């Protein structure tokens, strides 16, 4: 008889303990918690990463040999004067005899007065 009474109590307690856990959730609740919530988190993080990448300067890097898309810039000391006299001096500049590269190739040559100098290089 004792064994019989034990058998009648045990299933009841076992059911109670199991029912307290995740098994109490319905199928929709389970899906929402274990699929929809992680998916939402993943989507939010991915969106943030995408926006951050686009806004940042990471894709503006110059890499030699790869096409670099940018607006040309010219840093000058007196931009106003360049704008005003730019056109006139372009034509004036074209009339000047251009310095030949052969002249510039002579490294360390004494600079003749009245000529432009400098250097050329590639990478």
């Amino acid at each position, binding site marked *: 008889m004792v064994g019989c009474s034990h058998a009648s109590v045990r299933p009841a307690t076992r059911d109670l303990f199991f029912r307290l856990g995740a098994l109490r959730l319905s199928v929709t609740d389970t899906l929402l918690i274990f699929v929809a919530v992680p998916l939402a988190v993943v989507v939010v993080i991915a969106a943030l990463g995408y926006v951050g990448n686009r806004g940042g*300067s990471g894709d503006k890097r*110059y890499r030699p040999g790869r096409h670099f898309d940018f*607006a040309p810039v*010219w840093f000058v000391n*007196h931009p106003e004067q360049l704008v005003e006299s730019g056109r006139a*001096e372009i034509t004036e500049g074209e009339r000047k005899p*251009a310095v030949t590269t052969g002249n510039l190739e002579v490294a360390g040559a004494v*600079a003749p007065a009245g000529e*432009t100098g400098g250097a050329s290089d590639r990478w």
Partner: protein
Amino acid sequence: MTVGEMQAEQSRPDLRDGPFTTRQLLRLDEVLRLANRGTDLNFSVYVGPLEEPVREHALRLHSQLADPADSVLIALSPNQRQLEVVTGSVARRRIPDRDARLAALSMVAAFGGGDLAGGIIAGLNQLASRAGKS
């Protein structure tokens, strides 16, 4: 006296479209200002496409500057991988071609590593220190 920025088409573009980040622009501005003030030469930096022949185009840009004789132009085209340093007739006496070439060499070394701003700053510093006090 501030260093201006403008496009070849003479329209004011958005600086963010340019090849430099804000931080690099600030550093460039500072270095250019120091170079101009320290030497009394006009340093100018052009970054953009250069038409063939490249040297002629750089000379043309140089002649457009307010005072070409006193001006030093650093013109570079990242896509063509070309660098031109143009010194005016007065500036050339203080920066001989040999030193311009040395500065160009160090700039090209930085450009080859993908560092445009760093190369320009190094070159400017080198040219300015060679020109010395006016």
